[in-house]
């Protein structure tokens, strides 16, 4: 590490050098992601239990969702993960312009995810009566399917609790992620993330990839259960 780089990087006073700070930051983020795994874990546990208790109802619920949305989100998030990873690389290489471009791209994809999720998919679900609880009454285009599974409806409602909780919690994480990206963009414009201290971009990247991974599991678990070949 050269002297002027050392001068440029602001090392917090409790650390001896940037190396220590960087590894502490990254380790802290990994630990935080562990807590996130277990935070989502409670929902996954409930999901697994009920799915095995009510397999038919779970498949029926899944068939009321639209695979196109799920597949599109997955692709969108994988793209945003790519741009995020390239952003970290740009920060490592101290390329301010390309870092900005990658962060903006990631930001747009993240925001698009949340917007489409809420404005189109959830709103559509609401219109089709898929909100669980006492008013649960599916009446979408798939009427034949709904009639077929009529006896299962209370348990299909249970599926939709988990659908809304899991995708809702995920969307909440996306919103936080978009906020973090906004902060990173501001820091980047101030030139604070391209001085060799790529740790901030890196830990936001870790978070972003984690949220992507959660979706990678949510997609098959919610949209593809029981096959789509009926």
């Amino acid at each position, binding site marked *: 590490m050269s002297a002027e*780089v050392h001068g440029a990087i602001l090392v917090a006073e409790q650390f001896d050098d940037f190396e220590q700070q960087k590894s502490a930051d990254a380790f802290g983020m990994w630990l935080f992601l562990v807590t996130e795994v277990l935070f989502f874990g409670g929902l996954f546990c409930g999901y697994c239990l009920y799915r095995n208790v009510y397999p038919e109802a779970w498949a029926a619920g899944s068939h009321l969702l639209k695979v196109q949305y799920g*597949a599109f989100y997955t692709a969108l998030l994988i793209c945003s993960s790519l741009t995020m990873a390239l952003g970290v*690389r740009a920060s490592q290489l101290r390329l301010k312009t390309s870092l900005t471009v990658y962060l903006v791209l990631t930001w747009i994809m993240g925001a698009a995810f949340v917007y489409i999720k809420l404005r189109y998919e959830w709103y559509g679900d609401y219109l089709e009566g898929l909100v669980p609880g006492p008013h649960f009454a599916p009446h979408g285009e798939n009427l034949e399917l709904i009639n077929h599974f009529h006896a299962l409806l209370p348990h299909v409602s249970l599926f939709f609790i988990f659908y809304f909780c899991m995708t809702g919690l995920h969307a909440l994480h996306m919103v936080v992620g978009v906020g973090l990206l906004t902060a990173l963009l501001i820091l980047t414009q101030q030139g604070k993330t391209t001085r*060799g201290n790529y740790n901030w971009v890196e830990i936001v990247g870790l978070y972003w990839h984690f949220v992507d*991974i959660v979706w*990678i599991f949510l997609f*098959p*678990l919610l949209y593809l*259960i*029981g096959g789509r070949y009926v």
Partner: protein
Amino acid sequence: MSEHVHVHPKLFYVKVFLALIVLTTITTAVAYVDLGIFNTVVALVIAVCKASLVVLFFMHLKEQTGMTRVVIIAAALWLSVLIVITLSDRFTRHWFPSNGPWEASAVTAPQSQ
């Protein structure tokens, strides 16, 4: 500083990205083929593969210290403990014979005094 940082070429990330897109396509396509129970198995295996790709290459787990790996394994292990044990309760309850014919003879209740 930068000599300590291992910077991957762009192509490296693009390859991972392409692999992820391919796997997404496969998992979606497989859902339309009737494989019975294996639909779920395939979907989960592909999801685990995709997650591993992201963790290993996008999140640079390969360059992290051993401790980070321990942390991730611990998270996965603890999550599986939670899920497996919880489910094992629910789905082994009915294995237990509710009536024991041997009990009738085993418990010779003393008569009233």
